[in-house]
């Protein structure tokens, strides 16, 4: 690469010469002056910056707004109190559920410019992408030194580990398989909260008969994938669902076909303008009474409260029908990159992120439950307390949409197959594509 450096200096030199030529004609003196002025102090600053660098930590995330950003701020506050001499640099990039952020992170890592720590969904999203590329350092030592192994659920540890090495510090837990309902609509139509897929279908048939065109609210494409993973779990049960992701069960089997049939049926109850709605828009249809149900992760609860609805009266919740006793989870976690520019500061940040204080600062604001089981229950609302109870006694399975069970490549292949299915509704093609995706990017052979 050295010759490129040389070429560029040559170019820069020539540019300056060319601009200098401009000076002679007494036109456009502006471009040269700022360039030189900027260049000089930049060089002077360089050594000063190097000294400062020991005292900062750059943390990358896609939490730029709403409860997420507020939660991060709350955790940063805890961090600043504990480590007042370390400057926290919040490198959050928004957009498309972290897509922009991921692109920025990928280009930075490929260029060898890792931030000190970054946010990622615990599970295969981190393991399949960053661990596979040798970018992450195991953090077992942090778990041991801080006694986290005693306070983090046993079921969680294997999902964030590879070959006995733990690769991230989970900050929170969200539940994916939640069916939100509008209690008023259900009561008016004499409908009980469904617990099986069949009950659910019957309920939605009744609502349609009563004139509600689309009883189930859905949003843009990723929310369809979110719905899909819960129906897959409902149709197959936890064991078979897990086996799909570890290669223990083939995607070509008839049970999967039956699950896809269920999914197609569920879709038939959804709104026709789904692709134009965000998840918030879709969730709002339920509390406004335009729809009766919505399947969304439990961050929707924070949204309902923010727009002024009360639990039980404004919105009700249950596990997605057929998934009772299962907690389909996802978790935001922070990592320690190999060659972190400020490794000590990064470890300080991770220590806060895993601490009870840090998690209890973050989660009530973000609207999630702590990954630790010893969170201060007084800080959490009614829904979150119920989620904490379920988290401790349900069977834990991972979410597809939110990075737990499938690596990024596999997930993106599934996403394409699902998008095509939403267009042509051809279940057989969908199933073939799912099987192919597992062979090409998953564990299937």
């Amino acid at each position, binding site marked *: 690469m050295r010759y490129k450096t040389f070429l*560029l200096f040559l170019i820069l030199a020539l540019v300056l010469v060319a601009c200098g030529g401009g000076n002679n004609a007494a036109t456009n003196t502006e*471009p040269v002056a700022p360039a030189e002025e900027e260049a000089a102090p930049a060089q002077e600053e360089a050594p000063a910056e190097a000294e400062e660098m020991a005292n900062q930590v750059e943390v990358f995330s896609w939490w730029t707004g709403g409860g997420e950003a507020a939660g991060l701020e709350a955790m940063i506050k805890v961090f600043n109190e504990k480590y007042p001499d370390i400057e926290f640099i919040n490198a959050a990039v928004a957009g498309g559920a972290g897509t922009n952020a991921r692109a920025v992170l990928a280009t930075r890592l490929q260029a060898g410019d890792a931030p000190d720590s970054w946010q990622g969904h615990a599970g295969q999203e981190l393991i399949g992408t960053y661990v596979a590329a040798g970018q992450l350092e195991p953090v077992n030592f942090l778990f041991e030194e801080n006694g986290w192994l005693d306070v983090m659920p046993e079921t969680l540890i294997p999902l964030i580990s590879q070959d006995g090495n733990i690769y991230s510090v989970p900050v929170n837990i969200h539940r994916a398989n939640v069916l939100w309902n509008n209690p008023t609509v259900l009561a008016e139509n004499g409908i009980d909260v469904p617990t099986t897929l069949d009950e659910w279908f019957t309920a939605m048939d009744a609502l349609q008969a009563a004139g509600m065109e689309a009883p189930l609210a859905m949003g843009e494409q990723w929310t369809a994938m979110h719905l899909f993973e819960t129906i897959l779990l409902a149709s197959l049960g936890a064991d078979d669902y897990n086996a799909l992701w570890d290669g223990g069960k083939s995607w070509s089997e008839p049970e999967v076909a039956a699950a896809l049939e269920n999914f197609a049926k569920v879709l038939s109850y959804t709104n026709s303008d789904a692709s134009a709605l965000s998840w918030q828009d879709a969730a709002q249809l339920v509390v406004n009474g335009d729809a009766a149900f919505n399947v969304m992760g439990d*961050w929707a609860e924070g949204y309902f409260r923010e*727009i002024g609805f009360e639990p039980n009266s404004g919105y009700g919740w249950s596990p997605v029908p057929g998934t009772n006793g299962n907690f389909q989870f996802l978790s935001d976690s922070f990592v320690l990159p190999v060659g972190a520019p400020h490794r000590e500061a990064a470890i300080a940040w991770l220590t806060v992120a895993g601490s009870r204080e840090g998690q209890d600062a973050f989660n009530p604001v973000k609207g999630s439950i702590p990954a630790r089981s010893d969170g201060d229950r007084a800080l959490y609302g009614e829904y979150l307390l119920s989620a904490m109870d379920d988290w401790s006694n349900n069977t834990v399975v991972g979410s597809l949409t939110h990075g737990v069970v499938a690596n990024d490549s596999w997930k993106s292949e599934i996403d394409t197959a699902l998008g095509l299915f939403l267009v042509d509704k051809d279940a057989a093609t969908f199933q073939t594509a799912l099987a192919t995706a597992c062979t090409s990017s998953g564990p299937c052979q």
Partner: protein
Amino acid sequence: MTAIQSRKRYFFYIPLVLMAIFYLIPIYIMLVTGFKSFAEVDLQTMWRLPQGIHFDNFVEAFTKLAPHLWNSIKLVIPAAIISSILGSLNGFVLARWKFPGADVIFPVLLFGMFIPYQSILIPLVQFMREINLYGGVWGLVLTHVIYGIPITTLTFRNYYATVPKELIESAKIDGASMMRTYFYILLPLSLPSFVVVLIWQFTSAWNDFLFAVVLTSPENWPITVALNNMAGSQIIAWNVQMAGSFIAAVPTLLVYIFLGRYFLRGLMSGALKG
């Protein structure tokens, strides 16, 4: 013109006004939403005027965006000026002072205009790191200058090609050197092209998001990245967001309002005709 009766000509205003409304609708929505209170923002009432003027949205948005607004200004001005100067020199040489191979070099330069930028992000970041310009504003300036070379060169070359040969020949006969010909004859003539190119580059650098988000570090983010980050992932305060959008659009709008006439004149004089 005489052939058309003046009364009939009033009918021409109907489509013109309708189109004006079409072009203004998004700005209308942006402004009325920007002045609404948070509780008032609702899709069903998006067309309604605000019930009171909530100027605090603009204040809030401005407070959040101000440092990035400044970054954008620091970025856009040198980027526009340097690429215009380069374009002018290139255009001059390629149009008038042809050296062997000039006709090959022009299309080679021009083709750069057409590459899809998303596909070159990875080598771009690697290269910028290699030359230590990654993260700061100057790396982004360099990027805009370089990817601006094709369009600026094209504009100037086409413009200089219309300058009568005699003018240059006579200068040569007078013994003027190449650089003198450029500075004393062509440069003063090319003011309209400078306006077009400066505005073009100003706008495209100002509106750029892709290069900015991958090439600069948070403290150097220009306004587009900051604006994009304002839209949080749960409750988006659309009134503040719209106020912020308007603030982000103001500099380019001002440029068009005050210099638009010259831009159009330059465009119409053929400055941007392929």
